[in-house]
């Protein structure tokens, strides 16, 4: 294994009850990169993370953290974790919770640094139960980063955060990544993956059906979207060659095509009044839809 690899699944398979939750998954996280694991509910994202964290053991293949089994304390001392649900003790204060998790690490961040990074300075004296849902998420994030991790696991980190907290959160992640921290992220918010991730893996029914850079994933979808304000009817445009689908949203037409240039020529020729023309490559959402449809 090369030294740049911080986490790895090799041929990993895992049965959960009657369901094959994960099958023959190969996945490698390099030092310093942000890797987003995407896929519909039940695709195996949480199982994959649980294998990497050592919460579950694979039935087939293996999981490695820094070249060691994830159960090894020496490996886990180099990671930070934020899970989807973690009901921390209600009656302890934020400062006490931080002290507890900081005590697990050899050289933790100072309390002041963690509080500043996570934006929780005013909350340190408060008991956990008194916090709002968004504030609790920020405390959970603070616990994840307090040990100066080289690899950070974030399972649906921004669920329950408002837009402003989310953007603040993204800025902090970028800061940590600039400092050399790698991140494994699962999220339902595609804009989150687009904002943060360098590489994306798409899980579907327990299999890794696509993996690559953000651009490579987007390019998996050959389509382009054309949007414009036009008086042409959807039926009329749908009859043209190379047009995959047409939808009307108010006065705007929304056309999907694998090859936009011939369609554009026809459009401009057919409607002299046409305006507000936009051509876009399909976004991550469309790419995921296509990939998961192909895989199903």
């Amino acid at each position, binding site marked *: 294994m090369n030294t740049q690899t911080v986490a790895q699944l090799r041929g990993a398979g895992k049965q959960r009850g009657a369901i094959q939750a994960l099958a023959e998954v190969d996945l490698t996280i390099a030092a310093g990169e942000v890797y987003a694991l995407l896929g519909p509910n039940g695709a195996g994202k949480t199982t994959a993370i649980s294998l990497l*964290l*050592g*919460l*579950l*053991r694979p039935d087939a293949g293996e999981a490695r953290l820094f070249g060691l*089994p994830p*159960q*090894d*304390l*020496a490996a*886990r*001392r180099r*990671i*930070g*974790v934020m*899970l*989807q*649900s*973690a*009901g*921390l*003790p209600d*009656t*302890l204060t934020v400062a*006490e919770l931080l*002290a*507890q*998790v900081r*005590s*697990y*690490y*050899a050289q933790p961040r100072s309390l002041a640094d963690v509080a500043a990074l996570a934006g929780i300075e005013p909350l340190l004296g408060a*008991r956990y139960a008194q916090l709002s849902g968004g504030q609790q998420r920020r405390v959970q994030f603070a*616990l994840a980063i307090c*040990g100066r991790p080289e690899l950070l*696991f974030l399972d649906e980190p921004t669920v329950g955060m408002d837009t402003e907290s989310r953007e603040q959160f993204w800025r902090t992640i970028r800061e940590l990544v600039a400092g050399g921290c790698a991140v494994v992220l699962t999220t339902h918010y595609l804009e989150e993956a687009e904002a943060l991730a360098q590489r994306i893996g798409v899980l579907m029914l327990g299999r890794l059906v696509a993996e690559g850079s953000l651009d490579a994933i987007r390019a998996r979808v050959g389509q382009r979207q054309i949007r414009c304000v036009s008086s042409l009817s959807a039926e009329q445009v749908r009859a043209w060659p190379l047009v995959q689908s047409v939808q009307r949203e108010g006065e705007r037409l929304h056309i999907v095509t694998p090859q936009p240039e011939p369609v554009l020529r026809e459009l401009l020729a057919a409607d002299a009044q046409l305006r507000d023309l936009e051509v876009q490559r399909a976004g991550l959402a469309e790419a995921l839809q296509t990939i998961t449809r192909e895989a199903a």
Partner: protein
Amino acid sequence: MTTTTFDAIARRSLALEARLEFLRLLRTPSFAVPALAFPVLFYLLFGVLLAKPGSAMRVAQYLMATYSVFGVMAPGLFGFGVGVATERDKGLLALRRALPMPPLNYVGGKLAMAMLFAAIIVTLLCITGATVGAVHLEVTQWLSLFVLMVFGALPFCALGLLIGSFVNGQAAPAVVNLIYLPMALLSGLWFPLNLLPLAIQKLAVLWPAWHLAQLGLAATGQGGEGSVAAHLLYLAVFTVAVGRWAARRLQREP
């Protein structure tokens, strides 16, 4: 196989963990108030106020030993039973296992908490007994009762851990009470067993609380049935067997 790490980080962390576990429960009134107050209140009521003067058995002395058992059962049963069940439900156990928590911390912190609560409860009962209960004991007898009860909390920690590995957080308080209160009655903690049917007296050897109570009576010079060595052996075997069963269940994958 992973080896158990107990280095300097783990030792410092364990001390903090024990303190926080104690604070957590001290700030939980539904636990702290009954656990600290009930044994003393019941003892005052039944051992001192309602005791017939001149009764053949010295009620205040008998109940001081048995209410100590009743008292030290609670931190183990509730602290472990309800605590573990709730923390399993809420995903906290998973988070702590994913974080680099030293493996001994989870149980170690809770054990220290239970023994500290046990020490406080026995001390309160002994002070009450020595003052308003007019119980007179040798210094060595006081000390042996104290040490016995602090370690006597351990079998109930194991039992609590096992309960916590079976039931969810919602059901745990009810399940714990359904074990705690009948066992207290059937072990003769509230009144001597010879007031109950013979069959119940015969069954008493099954309950760890009965064995601890016999040891408590012996330590305070009140005889107690059976041999000290046999009671100690039973409690040690019970603690290890139940504790290992619980640990195996908790290490299983969800």
